[in-house]
């Protein structure tokens, strides 16, 4: 059941990333991080978002903000989970 939920969540995440719906993508990855022990898809989603819409010449660090945000979110939620559970 948990695996099916994860696959559905991943498919929704791919759709959100392809369409550039980053607020929806953030909501989905938050659900993913909270429910699964190691939701590594968040990093892939961050890299994919930057590769599609960022990582452009002249954009500087802003072109990598998806990846940076994903790593920070993963660490913060991991720490929060440790505190709460």
């Amino acid at each position: 059941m948990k695996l099916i939920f994860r696959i559905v969540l991943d498919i929704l995440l791919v759709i959100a990333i392809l369409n550039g719906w980053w607020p929806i993508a953030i909501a989905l990855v938050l659900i993913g991080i909270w429910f699964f022990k190691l939701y590594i898809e968040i990093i892939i989603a961050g890299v994919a978002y930057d590769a599609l819409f960022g990582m452009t010449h002249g954009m500087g660090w802003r072109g990598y903000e998806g990846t940076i945000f994903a790593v920070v979110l993963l660490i913060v939620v991991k720490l929060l989970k440790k505190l709460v559970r």
Partner: protein
Amino acid sequence: MYIRTSKRPGQDLARMSAYIAAGIVVVIIAVQLLVPHFLPSIFTTIARPFWRMEFSVGSGSLDSPQVLLAENESLKTQLAALNVQQQSIQAVANDNSELLALLGRPDASSVAASNIQSATSTGTASSTPISYLKSMPGRILAAVLVRPPQAAYDELLIDIGADRGISYGAKVYAPGNILIGSTTDILGQTSKVKLFSSPGEIYSVLIGSGRIPATAVGRGGGQYQAEVPQASKINQGDTVSDSSISDAPFGIVTAVLANPADPFETVLFAPSVNIYQLRWVLVATSTGKKI
């Protein structure tokens, strides 16, 4: 007495996840430093078929024959009306060409004439891109796969790239010969276009009938602003054009913000096309620099 001999499994998992995340970040940094276009190429190659499909559906590929026939009829009527309009504008363009030739700028006459011609064909450009393309030599027609607000950085993703000889910095025009941006990243079959309206981007323009020189500063979302002296008499609806001799249309003044205490007034303007609805653009092939 109980002695713990091993660490908790939760700690191991947390450590492992931290290592994996750090490893991915290190790999990304290394790949970006060594092969800057590798990751964008991989992901856009995967995304391109989905975007193309979305574009085709949006263009009416799945509409019923009745809807397509009705649209065809409507476009034919529209085209006939525009042809009549075109003839009178062509006469003005010819006059303009002769005047420019008299003033010693025969080279500019053809550019100016084509601008007038293309500016009037905006209505048909989006519906008949092939005929529009024929009227614009030295430019390649491209379909817009992703546009703001879908792309969060005020940029467009178009369906042509190195495969069609697009170069870095090539100018990009919306239907109607409206200059909107330039290419910033060229991939195999796609390119990224940074709009001049991106926050902080600057471009030289001429505003109003008095052709007041100003620097357009991008505000994002297809909007620009410029500072002009109070006595410039710029009004809402005035045209903004490219500062080159080609005189390409750039935008239309949407508001003028004046403070009596300030010697300058702020002019807000936007392109006459809606960047949120752009489906086709033209990319210049003759200009631009390689990197």
